């Protein structure tokens, strides 16, 4: 009796297996006649999401000034150390980068520089088509990086929110409290 039951089970299993096989084979066969979903890259280009990480730019603030204050934060945070620059100071005390260089042959497009930047100067763009035959062509200087717009947040202006005495004395900027006299904190 038990043996018969077992045999029935085996036949049932076999039947089930065959059904599953037929199911699989018919699925692939039907796909043979479907239109491929492939995007044919150089001809069909997909517009990438706004925040996808590609070629890096240096943006300007709403006044048209360079946002970068050459604070070296991006350079410090960069895991592959591909950003280098030389800071300098303008007559009015505002800092800027004398030269600013990104080696895109080393950049891994991690976006950490963008996150570190206090002035929103350095930003990544969705443009990823920047392969070159010669690796030296991947060294981008400041004039290659600098653009004429504000990038993602056009209204942001670091010097209006905080900063050195450029637009006004300390404590006079947007949302800035007057400097605290450390002596007043004494018990």
């Amino acid at each position: 009796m038990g043996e018969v039951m077992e045999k029935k089970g085996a036949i049932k299993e076999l039947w089930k297996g065959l059904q599953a096989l037929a199911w699989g084979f018919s699925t692939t066969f039907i796909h043979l006649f479907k239109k491929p979903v492939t995007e044919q890259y150089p001809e069909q280009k997909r517009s990438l999401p706004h925040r996808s990480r590609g070629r890096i730019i240096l943006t300007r603030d709403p006044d048209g000034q360079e946002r970068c204050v050459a604070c070296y934060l991006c350079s410090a945070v960069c895991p592959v150390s591909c950003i280098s620059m030389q800071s300098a100071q303008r007559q009015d005390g505002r800092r800027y980068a004398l030269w600013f260089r990104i080696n895109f042959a080393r950049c891994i497009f991690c976006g950490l520089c963008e996150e570190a930047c206090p002035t929103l100067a350095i930003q990544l763009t969705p443009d990823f088509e920047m392969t070159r035959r010669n690796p030296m062509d991947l060294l981008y200087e400041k004039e290659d990086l600098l653009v004429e717009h504000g990038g993602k947040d056009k209204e942001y202006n670091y010097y209006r929110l905080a900063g050195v005495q450029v637009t006004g004395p300390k404590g006079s900027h947007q949302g800035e409290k007057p400097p605290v006299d450390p002596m007043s904190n004494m018990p």
Partner: protein
Amino acid sequence: MAQWTEAVFLAAIKSALVILVLLGIAAYLVLAERKILARLQVRYGPNRAGPRGVLQPLADMIKLLTKEDTIPAGADKVLFLMAPAVVAATVLMSFAVVPWGPEFAFGDTKIKGIVADVPVGVLYLFAMSSLAVYGVALGGWASNSKYSLLGGVRGAAQMISYELSMGLSLAPVVMISGSFSLVSIVEAQQGIPFALVQPVSLVLFFLSSMAETRRIPFDLPEAENELVAGYHTEYSGMRFGLFFLGEYVNILVLGALVATMFLGGWKGPVLPPAIWFLLKVTAVAFLLIWIRGTLPRFRYDQLMHLGWKLLLPASILNVLATGAILAFWES
């Protein structure tokens, strides 16, 4: 003397023709496989080299021929260099006994549609397919790389488990047609193809020879995911190309065997024999590609289980049953 030279001359021409056609078809089989496989997976496949990618085989060939041929340090040089040739040569040689057409007259010489009508063609085929695995095993061993070695060992083990059931699954065909020659086997299918007489042995043969050709779902010697590329991991350039060629010619050999043994070979209405033969081979090749696009790879123990515990007993039973029926018929 004249007859002797004529025979050699004819054989040389026929083999050259068969090899050329075979290589051409194999090159385009690669393209067809990539295309069909792509469509099965809702992709386009190669479509850049030439219109719709028809020049892809040419581009691949140029690439393979011009790539550097590297030999890993510590490899057994002679064996390493020999192994791909063994694989390619044996599969090409298998085709010598496969008939692609009936005897036809050319002028007043009669020409057989086969390179060599060997009376023991079936045995010759088995010999060739067992030799081919030496290429795999030796290539794997000579590479001096653990992945290759594992691939080679798997290839050898797989061959041992499948050769038996492959041989036994063809035994009923030989018993019914009463001959080891492939031409006589085709002639014996004058009425109905053996696929209808011996469906069980068709299935058994198809499964075990699929394992012999080392294709998905039986591609354990290559198993990209775990063994990089298995026995040909260390090969580059045209030596890799020879392995590759071997695999695709092997598909054609398998297709030709299924066509000859079970589907009536070159026989068929209206169309010329060679075309019929080609059609049948292509159908089998398509089936193989379809299988590759559908099934995942077997696990090693599942493969052994299938070979030793299912296919082998089933083919033995099939031989016994066929023998009993034949004996009953005759008495």
